[in-house]
């Protein structure tokens, strides 16, 4: 039988690859300096020299989108990794120790899980204050509960299996059981939910900077660009559209990959 091509995975990888390349390059080099202003180029439409046009200060939108994607990408990767590592540790411990510890952790988790992520992010940002670093801290904390829940259920599933029982019988330490028996079997599930987490992080970061709580000017960020472009929609719709499309492409690529990966069996 002919094997079906996994188009989701292929297209997702291509999109994410291109976006990643642009974003990573954007952190170090952009076609024009992102803060270079020019009066003549104020709200200039897309042209060969400025393929995405220019903003209200005459700055090149393409360069700023590149830098903004880089920032969004860095924030998302950092926060998801942080949430994943801390959440996995907490979830593993809750599942492994069980009893009242598990009960307390999971009740807190239930309450936090009921809240939409953007609301929690807002609460945390109001607590820590705005700015890029605080957004990273807030989003990092935000992602802990979902990973803790997944790690715990993986731990509960694997804990009772025979190879873990045997490891315990031959006298392995708790740490060794968790790291060399449970973790290698649980990490695929945990990584799969990291993709969902990544998309939430991208949307949350963009949303927070749209509200003016994330990256502070003059640094470029996709959300803030859309927010500024809102006042120039009549004259320069491209200024709003390109950063928005950049966010969609970023999210879509990772979503396609995770869909594709879930079909591999």
């Amino acid at each position, binding site marked *: 039988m002919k094997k079906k091509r996994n188009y989701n995975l292929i297209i997702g990888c291509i999109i994410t690859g291109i976006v990643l390349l642009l974003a990573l390059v954007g952190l170090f080099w952009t076609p024009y300096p992102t803060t270079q202003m020019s009066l003549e180029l104020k709200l200039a439409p897309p042209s060969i020299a400025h393929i995405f046009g220019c903003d209200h200060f005459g700055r090149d939108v393409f360069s700023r989108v590149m830098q903004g994607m880089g920032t969004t990408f860095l924030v998302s990767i950092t926060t998801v990794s942080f949430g994943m590592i801390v959440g996995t540790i907490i979830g593993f411990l809750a599942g492994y120790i069980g009893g009242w510890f598990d009960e307390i952790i999971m009740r807190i988790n239930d309450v936090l899980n009921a809240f939409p992520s953007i*609301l929690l992010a*807002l*609460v945390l940002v109001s607590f820590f204050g705005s700015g890029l670093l605080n957004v990273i801290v807030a989003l990092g904390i935000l992602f802990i509960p979902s990973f803790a829940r997944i790690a715990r259920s993986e731990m509960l599933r694997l804990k009772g299996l025979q190879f873990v029982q045997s490891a315990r019988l031959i006298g392995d330490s708790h740490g060794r059981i968790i790291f060399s028996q449970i973790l290698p079997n649980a990490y695929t599930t945990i990584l799969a939910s990291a993709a969902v987490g990544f998309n939430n992080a991208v949307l949350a970061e963009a949303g927070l900077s749209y509200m003016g709580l994330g990256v502070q000017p003059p640094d470029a960020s996709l959300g803030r660009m859309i927010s500024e472009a809102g006042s120039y929609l009549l004259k320069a719709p491209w200024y709003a559209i390109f950063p928005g499309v950049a966010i969609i492409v970023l999210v879509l690529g990772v979503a396609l990959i995770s869909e594709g990966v879930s079909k591999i069996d």
Partner: protein
Amino acid sequence: MKYVLKKILTLIIALLLISIVVFLAFSVIPGDAAISKLGTEATPERIAELREMLGLDKPILERYFIWLGNAVQLDFGTSYQYNVSVNSLLGTRIINSSILSIISFIMVIVFSIPIGIFSAKRRSVPGRTAMTTITQITMGVPSFFLGVLITYLFSIILKMFRLGDFVSPADSFWGACAYLVFPAIAIALPKIAMTVKFLTTSIRAELHKDYVRTAYAKGHTKNGVLYGHVLKNSLVPVITFMGVIVAEIVAGSIIVEKVFSVPGVGTLLITAITNRDYPVVEAVVLLFAFLIIVINFIVDMIYKIVDPRVKI
């Protein structure tokens, strides 16, 4: 009955937990409210006086109970920024935000169920791929960007409304609704896509069950099986999902209100956060928390009525 009581008990515990967390979080924030109100050059006597007036000199446990007692009586104190009671700020904004959320929710229900059925009926590979692609892209669009696109299309090109021309529902209820339809689309569209995806999966899973084969064997037509048997069962998990959707709508309205400059709870929260106006932030967060927990409770109750097998 025991189920209901147990649920109500967890509801109360959850609310108390949240109130403690909210209170503690905003009490340990560096920067005393009295100092921030008077400025750093105030004399120590003046600060001590104001601290006493605001009740900041009392032990934290006592302050919590005073605060909780007031909150239960819906008194959330005075806004630092506007110097008026938080209640007077919230009053009409709650109505505006509620209308917005209700319109969005109606849109989700009205559109997602037929589209979900339509999508589940697609058997061919191109049809399925097209539906998944559309839902996937719609889900990835941030609601505020959607808001900007809608403003561009309906306000600048089609001139159907003017941004910022919001009329208070007290003056003209339908006028307010007509304006709020546009932000509601921005909130509802990604949620419609989420619900469509969920419903499609649910219907497809249901179609493989034994009773469907029996129904076909009895001579039902395709549509007869779908509408008479499958749909009812596949809507049951959607009820729980609606709880999530309502919470997402409430949260999504915060940012979309800003896009369309609707004077609602969301815009109030954003300005309060930017200006560190903690009494307002506390009140809004408590309000949202209360709303979400109550919604989850209602969803659980409906679920129990629809599917009596459910146990906690």
